């Protein structure tokens, strides 16, 4: 290993040290730094600094009023061993992520793939139908009307008419229904940015690849999908995966809007809600930062898993 490295270095940059070589590379590519600078400076200021600070704050008992003390891992210990609601939140988040993450991802990809061969005008119309729910802001509140707790709600009216139920069901105040309904609503809004990225990615594939594939014996659309389409759009697939992971593990907004906060008996309480509870309402910033760090680690773990799966595609 070491000799290989040394040989490579000797071949590449004569007798310069690694540092000299890096400096030379940096000087040569000064334009690149100029190009990334505006974005990166702002990004560092508005994202990196706050994130690093939050990680640091997770080891303190900062509550916006008193001088913070460093408490090391106390927040983490409390979170895992002394906070029953957090465990409920973890359970709900995982149920949610396992159902909605892969489903929305597959749905986005398959729909994008299905409509890819339609004539352009029809494709644009179909795209609009599928994409409209996620682009329209808080339009998902209509589900609150459809599943309203009184007989003006469409679901209740149908069930009453058909004689299936005697009295109205308060869908969003009932532990049995909140979670499944919120899952349906979030699937309804889930054909979002990754869906568009998939459509754009599919259109960017070089068509000669498909023709070459047909010559090489690709027999049907599924083989074509596996051997040509998927490997050609790995970066877009990765983008979609990140969107699915951040969307499904960071889920919470729809529950708050439809079922209130907190939901009945914490039945749809997610990690996200727990974090907002401590950060936005109790001002226990140290503790809520701890929750954010844990959520961050979970997402990074999921991301690594997905990356491994995607890198194996088409091989």
């Amino acid at each position, binding site marked *: 290993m070491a000799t290989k490295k040394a040989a490579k270095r000797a071949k590449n940059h004569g007798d310069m040290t690694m540092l000299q070589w890096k400096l030379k590379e*940096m000087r040569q590519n000064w334009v690149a730094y100029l190009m990334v600078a505006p974005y990166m400076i702002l990004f560092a200021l508005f994202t990196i600094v*706050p994130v690093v600070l939050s990680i640091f704050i997770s080891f303190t008992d900062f509550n916006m009023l008193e001088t913070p003390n460093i408490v090391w891992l106390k927040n983490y210990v409390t979170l895992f061993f002394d906070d029953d609601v957090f465990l409920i939140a973890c359970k709900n988040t995982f149920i949610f992520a396992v159902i909605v993450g892969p489903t929305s991802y597959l749905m986005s990809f398959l729909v994008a793939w299905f409509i890819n061969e339609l004539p352009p005008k029809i494709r644009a119309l179909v795209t609009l139908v599928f994409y409209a729910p996620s682009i*329209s802001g808080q*339009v998902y509140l209509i589900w609150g009307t459809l599943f309203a707790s009184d007989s003006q709600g469409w679901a209740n009216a149908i069930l009453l008419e058909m004689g299936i139920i005697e009295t109205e069901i308060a869908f969003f105040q009932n532990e049995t229904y909140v979670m499944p309904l919120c899952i349906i609503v979030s699937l309804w809004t889930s054909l979002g940015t990754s869906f568009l990225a998939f459509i754009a990615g599919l259109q960017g594939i070089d068509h000669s690849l498909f023709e070459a594939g047909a010559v090489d014996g690709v027999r049907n659309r599924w083989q074509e999908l596996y051997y040509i389409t998927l490997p050609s759009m790995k970066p877009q697939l990765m983008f979609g995966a*990140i969107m699915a992971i951040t969307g499904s593990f960071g889920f919470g907004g729809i529950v708050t809007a439809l079922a209130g906060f907190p939901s009945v008996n914490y039945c749809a309480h997610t990690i996200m809600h727990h974090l907002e509870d401590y950060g936005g309402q109790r001002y226990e910033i140290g503790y809520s930062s701890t929750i954010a760090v844990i959520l961050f680690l979970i997402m990074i773990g999921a991301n690594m898993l997905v990356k491994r799966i995607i890198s194996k595609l088409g091989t």
Partner: protein
Amino acid sequence: MAKLRTRKHKVVLARSAGGDAGISIILILLGVFMFLPMYYVVIQSLKPLDELWMYPPRFYVMAPTFKNYRDLFTLMNISWVPFSRYIFNTVLTSIAGTFGHLLLASMAAYALAKIKFPGRDLMFQAVQMSLMFNATVTAITQFILMSALGWLDSYLAIIVPAWCSSLGLYLMKQFMDTNVNDSVLESARLDGAGEFKTFWVIAMPMVKPAWLTLIIYSFQGLWNAGASMYIYSEQFKSFNYAIGQILAGGIKRQGAAGAAQVIMMLVPITVFVISQSNIIETMGSSGMKD
């Protein structure tokens, strides 16, 4: 052009009729699921008040009326700050935020994807990781930062953070990786084009679908933004926030609420339709190269 390509495609590749039928059925079922609630939103906004509270609720309107829309405009006119100001605020922040983001993120993504320089992997990793960190927690440190910069209660507090959102850079980088051909860039450089020119003239047209996607995404996010914790003066607040205030008036404003919902969603959808037609044009012209 695109049509011709599809036909050529059919000759080369086997597409089973059963598969086509199955796919069509799935698409239609999913399409109905997606479409019905949206349709209901529009229908609700056209119902007169007595029909809104009718049992059983109907999926059609008997006496469609624009009264709800007129009510909404009346309500807008009696607001304390002129309503046009809220609209102006949202339009300004949406446009400035989106185009600033498009420019900065594309430029950085080009350098990260197409120029090999020390530190680029680290930078990209940082952007990718940041997508997974929760914004509620960082909001507090960002608030402190905003107040240190003196940007609280100004447009800058909304616009500038939108410029450096992680998602756009990530999207552009992924597309620069696949859709921009290195040999084309290389020949442009040999012809004496600088990196900025190569980026703008060669690379950007090749990733048009990506930046149209970015525009849609960024615009709808800013357009739908409600109250911000950085803004407390009424005259800087957003359209969405103002609508929310109007509609907090209870049951008698239910009709106006439906109308507001439709108006709010119409703008991002229009932006989407315009950019989609552009994507289709790109498709057509790229077909000519074959």
